[in-house]
């Protein structure tokens, strides 16, 4: 068994000890899956395979990837014009850095996954929509694309088939909302980065009004393994009902912050204690945002749960990107909430009222409370805002919903902290920082 069999995404990085260039990638079965897919499988077979594998999108929502691909019209039904495959590499979720690690260290697994994906939906144009600040990933991608093209894995007539793929990088101008797939498509088209109404969903009408699939970096990176080793292997990797591996990350006051490719469904406590080396001396874990900043807090009672989509959802949060932010007992929940809302308010695209005007209000109130200017009734105003901004469907897109998740759960789990701030007119945590 090579590491590739248990860690299809990062195993090779571990073996090589850093950047997996094309030679290193090929030496570890690289591009075998793409060759197999293009030369011996039909697009429909690949879509079914990915469906059967139970791969779920790693961009945050966990939508079944094969199912999404199956929505793309094929043949004549697709009408005239191009179809597009887009990799969402915007990764601006606070606390999330998994895609960056993949791009910097294993760019070819993404390219291979995209070749297979493009073939599956019969798209001959593909984009990697890259976070603007990702300079090193950009460099690595440029080199990897050049190498893959030189080897004939991209461009015209790939692997001697009549399948062509024009794969380009689009470096974002830098807005969190560009990660929302339809805002991403608008940005790609050169329009305001503002989400689109759904329906139509991108598989029906996406980039330039044509059928389009948008997937996360990590999602694509799962695909070559599935094609190479099959569904059973893939499902066997998961510890719970979800399949495959997941790149989990931890930031916060632990001994070894970082990320690890692990079987999906690894319990939270195991991630914190074993992989991150436990909390740093003198700090106690108080809460976690399990899947990035836009997910609800989980607390002590949840720490033994498995990190998979269903379990975390049942606990009232979301697995999101699977990269957690830990809050320890030295962190003021009010201040942390304020910090998060500052980010979300700033990153609102400005299109719809609750998000555009509601989040800055929430931020301002949290600042007031944090700095001792909180007033009676403020928590009710926060509750009301959280309720009305956060309910899915109340806003135009899920940005605001995500923004409110950490706040509504903070108000639930750490309400005493909020109340104490208002009651005493100061922040009880500031003393500890001194």
């Amino acid at each position: 068994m090579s590491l590739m069999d248990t860690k299809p995404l990062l195993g090779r990085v571990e073996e090589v000890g850093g950047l997996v260039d094309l030679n290193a990638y090929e030496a570890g079965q690289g591009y075998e899956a793409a060759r197999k897919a293009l030369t011996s499988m039909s697009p429909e077979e690949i879509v079914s395979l990915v469906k059967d594998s139970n791969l779920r999108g790693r961009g945050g929502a966990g939508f079944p990837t094969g199912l999404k691909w199956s929505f793309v019209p094929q043949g004549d039904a697709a009408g005239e014009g191009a179809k597009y495959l887009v990799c969402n590499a915007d990764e601006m979720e606070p606390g999330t850095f998994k895609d960056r690690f993949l791009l910097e260290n294993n760019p070819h697994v993404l390219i291979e996954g995209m070749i297979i994906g493009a073939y599956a939906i019969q798209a001959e144009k593909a984009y990697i929509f890259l976070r603007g600040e990702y300079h090193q990933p950009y460099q690595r991608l440029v080199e990897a694309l050049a190498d893959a093209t030189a080897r004939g894995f991209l461009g015209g007539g790939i692997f001697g088939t009549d399948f062509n793929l024009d794969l380009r990088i689009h470096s974002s101008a830098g807005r969190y909302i560009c990660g929302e797939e339809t805002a991403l498509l608008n940005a790609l088209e050169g329009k305001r980065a503002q989400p689109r109404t759904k329906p139509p969903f991108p598989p029906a009408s996406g980039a330039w009004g044509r059928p389009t699939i948008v997937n996360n970096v990590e999602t694509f990176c799962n695909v070559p393994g599935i094609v190479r080793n099959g569904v059973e292997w893939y499902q066997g990797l998961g510890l719970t009902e979800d399949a495959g591996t997941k790149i989990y990350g931890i930031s916060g006051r632990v001994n070894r912050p970082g990320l690890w490719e692990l079987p999906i469904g690894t319990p939270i406590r195991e991630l914190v204690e074993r992989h991150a080396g436990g909390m740093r001396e003198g700090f106690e874990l108080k809460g976690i945002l399990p899947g990035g900043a836009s997910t609800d807090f989980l607390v002590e009672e949840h720490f033994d749960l498995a990190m998979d989509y269903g379990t975390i959802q049942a606990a009232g949060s979301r697995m999101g990107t699977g990269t957690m932010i830990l809050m320890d007992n030295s962190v003021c929940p009010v201040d942390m909430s304020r910090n998060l809302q500052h980010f979300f308010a700033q990153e609102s695209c400005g299109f719809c009222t609750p998000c555009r005007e509601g989040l800055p209000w929430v931020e301002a109130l949290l600042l007031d409370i944090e700095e001792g200017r909180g007033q009676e009734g403020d928590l009710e105003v926060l509750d009301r805002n959280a309720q009305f901004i956060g309910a899915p469907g109340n806003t135009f897109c899920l940005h605001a919903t995500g923004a409110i998740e950490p706040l509504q759960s903070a108000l639930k789990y750490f309400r005493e902290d909020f109340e104490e701030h208002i009651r005493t007119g100061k922040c009880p945590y500031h003393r500890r920082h001194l």
Partner: protein
Amino acid sequence: MATINVDGQQYEVKEGQNLLHAVLSQQLNLPYFCWHPAMGSVGACRQCAIIQYADEDDERGRLGMACMTDVVDGMRISIAAPQAADFRESVIEWLMENHPHDCPVCEEGGECHLQDMTVMTGHSVRKYRGTKRTWENQNLGPFIGHEMNRCITCFRCVRYYRDYAGGTDLSAFGSRSRMYFGRSEDGPLESEFSGNLVEVCPTGVFTDKPFATHYTRKWDLQSAPSVCPGCAVGCNVFPSERYGVLKRVQNRYHGEVNGYFLCDRGRFGSHFINSDQRIRHAGIRAEDGVFEASGASNAIAEAVKLVTMDAVGIGSPRASFEANFALKKLVGEERFCTGLGDNEAMLIELALSIQREGGARTPSLTDVEAADAILILGEDVLNTAPRIALAVRQAVRAEAFTMAQEAGIPGWQDAGVRGHAQQALSPLFIASVATTRIDDVASATWGGAPQDIARVGAAIAHGIDPTYAAADVELSAAGIDFMHQVIAALGSAKRPLIVSGTGTGDPDVLRAAANVAWALKAKGSDPALLLSPLEANSYGVALLGGGLSMSDALDAMTGGSAAIVMENDLYRRGDAQRVSAACSESKMLVLDILENETAEHATVLLPASTYAECTGTYVNYETRAQRFYQVFEPDDEIRPAWRWISDIADALDSSGAGWANINVLIEECAKATHAALATISPPSDYRVEGGTRIPRQPHRYSGRTAMRAQISVHEPKATVDDETPFNYSMEGQNLGTQDGAAVPFVWSPGWNSNQSVFKFQQEVGGALLGGDPGALLVAPAPDSGDASRATKFQEVPDAFVATEAFLVVPVHAIFGSDELSNASWPIVERMPAPFALLNVADAKRLGVQAGAGISGPGLGASFEVLIDDRIPAGMVGVVHGLPGIRAIAAGRIDLSVDPDFIRRPGGHPDVIARG
């Protein structure tokens, strides 16, 4: 139809709509901002929240946006549910965080959709403690004020300006809670339809700037149903007045004509009414040649003398049908001239004869918007009949709606349709003498001299139906390519539209347009043919007709006949020398609104009312007769022209030759000409609910103001109006259920802004409750369904050959070519200097560049050279009708450079009127 349940009540609504549209069509109240009846939904403001229930047992329901929800048969929703109402209140609360609350000094105050929605949702207590964001405003030119602090970021302005009207210089900038709507830098808004921003913006960001200079609250404005005098489209308008001053013009909804929008000539072109060029007193020229105010009765006595001197009467295409009728009756058919120039009269006769013949529908603007392929032949509609151009911009979206429908995207879902269809446009072909400002949505354009445009048209008709004569001389390769594209596109269209008009001055262009339409008809499609004249009542006066042509009338005057010239500056109608000779030889009675060159020659001068100061009828390009009502009583000695004529008639013949009031005149006019004139609007004894009359003033009209306190602390006593169904007061009812021609303003409880118009409609975007007003006067011949019987114009003109001398062709400017609006100060600020269009090669040949001056025999003045790529070699496009520019005869002239020409400073020739 679908049945939906709203708060326990069943309603029959149309399928294929969104819920907001549906519930408003039922006249229910549901707050909204970003949705617009003409622009559909985008779901930005989140104001229109409702609760939708899954089924009968669902008690909680799900909150959703009405404007983004499809109507489904059997659905159950609630507007009143507390969760929805609370959410809607929260939306206002959010919007109000940064709103300046400057209602007392805001031009929108009292007719503000944001105020209305705030009250409707019940939000009142402010909880937000933060400071408010502030912005710097921009100078957007003479039309539109800008106060960004009031913005609620509903995106309506940019959606209207860019997506709907095709403008490019207004954008949404920034993001999050710092969105800015403006231009990249200060400067006049370039779109010719910018004024609609005033009505589209639900707050006081974009406001009517001329109105702000002499501001009055909406509730203190007196208005009446009226018709724009700016061009032959006949957009319905509400001119509003206070204390004898025309304050502003707003859109008056008409389901078939202008819908929700006007052009800027119409909206800002009426300030001539307050101009100091107004003729205000009756006057007589004394023996010494000095002109003296004489009092009305002396002037009438003097006028009577002239009439008895075998006077000719010259009417006008800018005067009402009734005034022209009165004058014609006074002087007799044989002594009456319509006031149209010879060529224009001939063109209009031709256009009317084509319409009479039928064979193709005459389209309303709603029909224009529904066309699926369009050929514009010769006419620069954006500058001659502007509102048509805005309708054409909507028509080209037919392809996008088809694509959306195929993809299952509802047509009302605006962003979805646009995103899906991208740049897809239905066929629009433009053959014109110069570039136009709708070229950007054309599939192909082609430039040529008018006779070559006629030849391309002939070739197209021949291509569709070979029984039509073709141009036998070869067209250029570009011409042939253009022709084939047009033939293919029109041939496969279901509702093709041909647009032309009298603008190029060439009858062959009209004939070619008719041929194309008729050829299509013979092929079995349902073509429409739009032939537009240049002025508000061109068709009306032509339908009335007269025994004298302009030349005849001028000849008679030169021969010593006296003349009554009504609302007509003859220098705009005929050769200047001939007009001068006629004016100096003839004793003239001039009735007019503004001082002009003709009036300077008058022996007797009588001040005439503007369209806002009298009641009458204009006949638009469809031959739709539309009634406009007196908004206010003119000051001083100003009276309606027909009233002066009536008084003269009475003085001539005391047995009642005149008319006691406008009703009597309309009645007689209808009997003698078109019966419909008596029925297009209700008579003076018309009464609405409760047997009351209709108020010209909203019910909050205040008599409490210090505006005239230095004159008198009393409000002037309201005149009793026995000529119309309206009161010059706030007494009566304007519930909207009355005759559609008798709606003097829109207002409804809780809806103080123009958004209240839906309370006056049968359904959102549909006909008015009391019917869309007006009636077509030209009924096509009974066998018009059979185009094979239509006259075919079989004579194709010769190809244009460039020579040393330049062919002069008139071109038009939305801001400047219309006689009255070009005396309206905001329009004057946007008016180009007199210009002449040349192509680059000709300019080189003459040794001039853009900005230089050229002149030539017959041009009168020097014109600023503008370079236009489409103008063919050997042709010069000379702007028509600017102040001080007399009629310019078509023909060939030698052009020469004017070395002393000084370019008028401050003009913006790139953004005004001409592309």
